[in-house]
């Protein structure tokens, strides 16, 4: 069934969108990732204009992160105070990101920026995940001593210290705000929640306990992506609500299936599969940049905003 998207102004198969939403939903349920970093490039591949894909995906992430954050709030695994600090940075970053996005759109480099960001971040995250899970697989075969380190780093020595009770931390607010800004910029440019950057940053840079990391990250992602959606909707008019709804329906159902599947399967092997898939998407995007395209010319709207 073909469906005409009013904002993207392209006609696509509705079942393809439901299927994509479902597939990414299954993955996000299985691995606890937002899925934006996979969905946005997939939308590029099926011919949705990049500007619409990025803005609409931000809207979809609001839904999936809200659903996830509710579950974590019930389990009290959200550090609201840390979330708010990260959020302040995140909103600043999102506003900055949309400005960068618009400036580049005017000079015709937005596609390049979005694709380049994807290649770099998917490459890093996919590569790290792949190595990490290989190591974990090896460790599970030959069990050894687990090392735990507690770093007393930069976060402790900077001024403006604040107590974060849920996380059991007493650190400066500057590092969390910087992390928030960076992830906010990414969210606006790449149409992702940024959880895949935020989670490692919270653990390794801020030293937060693992059990509150996912909930806190989801909590602030709701607001950052919500803000990004509004900014894209009011400045670029690129949020396609029909596209978002179709992806949402697929995503919500897929996530349910995913959590059930994930509980039954071997986590480490799944993680390797996910990392291979992330690397494959990254590879495809990289090849598009590196190989000579079959069509050197492209058509864009005149001038820009």
């Amino acid at each position, binding site marked *: *069934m*073909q*469906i*005409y998207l*009013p*904002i993207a*102004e*392209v*006609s696509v198969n509705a079942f393809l969108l439901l299927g994509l939403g479902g597939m990414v939903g299954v993955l996000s349920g299985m691995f606890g990732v937002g899925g934006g970093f996979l969905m946005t490039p997939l939308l590029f591949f099926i011919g949705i204009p990049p500007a619409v894909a990025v803005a609409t995906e931000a*809207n*979809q992430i*609001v*839904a*999936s*992160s*809200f*659903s*996830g954050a*509710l*579950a974590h709030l019930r389990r009290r695994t959200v550090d609201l105070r840390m979330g708010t600090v990260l959020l302040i940075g995140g909103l600043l970053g999102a506003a900055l990101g949309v400005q960068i996005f618009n400036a580049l759109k005017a000079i*015709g*480099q937005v*596609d*390049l920026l979005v694709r*380049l960001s994807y290649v770099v971040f998917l490459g890093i995250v996919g590569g790290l995940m792949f190595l990490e899970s290989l190591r974990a697989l090896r460790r599970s075969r030959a069990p050894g001593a687990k090392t735990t380190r507690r770093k007393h780093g930069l976060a402790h020595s900077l001024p403006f210290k604040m107590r974060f009770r849920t996380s059991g931390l007493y650190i400066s607010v500057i590092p969390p705000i910087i992390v928030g800004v960076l992830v906010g910029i990414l969210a606006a440019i790449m149409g992702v929640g940024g959880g895949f950057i935020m989670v490692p940053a919270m653990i390794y840079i801020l030293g937060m306990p693992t059990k509150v990391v996912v909930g806190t990250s989801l909590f602030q992602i709701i607001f950052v992506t*919500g803000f990004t*959606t*509004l900014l*894209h*909707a*009011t400045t670029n*008019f690129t*949020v396609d*609500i*029909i596209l*978002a*709804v179709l992806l*949402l*329906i697929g995503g*919500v159902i897929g*996530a*349910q299936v995913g*959590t059930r599947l994930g509980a039954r399967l071997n986590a480490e092997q799944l993680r390797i599969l996910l990392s291979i898939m992330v690397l494959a998407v990254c590879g495809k995007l990289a090849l598009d*940049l*590196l*190989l*000579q*395209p079959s*069509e*050197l*010319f*492209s*058509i*864009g*709207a*005149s*001038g820009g905003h």
Partner: protein
Amino acid sequence: MLRALILSVLFVLPAKAEEVVVGLSQNRVAITTNFDGSEILIFGAVKRETAISEDEPLEVVIAVAGPSEPLTVRRKEKRYGIWINTDAVEVDQAPSFYAVATSGPWTTVLKDIEDLRHHVSISRAIRSVGAEIEGSEAFTQALIRIREAKGLYQTNIGAVDLSEQTLFNTSIQLPANLTEGDYKARFFLTRGGNVVDTFETEIAVQKVGLERFLFRLSRDKPLIYGLMSLAIAIAAGWGASAAFRLLRN
């Protein structure tokens, strides 16, 4: 899909020996949610007071053009190992859709001077002046090539069936990725490549229903549209969470 047959009433201009009378299968195209392209049938007749002229055969050229807009055509070049957009050419006016159908080979149906005057062929319908980059011809050629591949620009030589130099018909295929606006359909009767008579009519292409509502809302009240998108997302997220709990219990 023949809807109402609308025959256009012509003013009788005394000076002309031959006039074109035209009908369209539809003069409105509605872009609905399940729109996946449309076909417009065009038919017409030549009205004449005298006997059919013997010297040169009558030919018909039909051009349908979507609303024009300024565009930027960009060219990629390899820089720092990757392909990025470098040069750009501004095209002043390019129709979003353009289909031209003829009853015979291009060279016999229309003289170049007439094409220049009426902007009939695709390359003449695109207006690009003051392009500073040398070789800007390549850019307009690329524009035509890309849009031809998407079915947005069509040149259908010999697609107009003309019988007895009087009755003619053709069909124009409208692709699914159509933009809104008033589409101009122009008709040219030619003899020996010279235009004998012209006629012009409009086809209104419009988003309707939900498509129209959402599109207008996103442009006229972007804040409300954005908040509505968010509300839907939040409701769906909450619904998913509630359904999860129900299923688990």
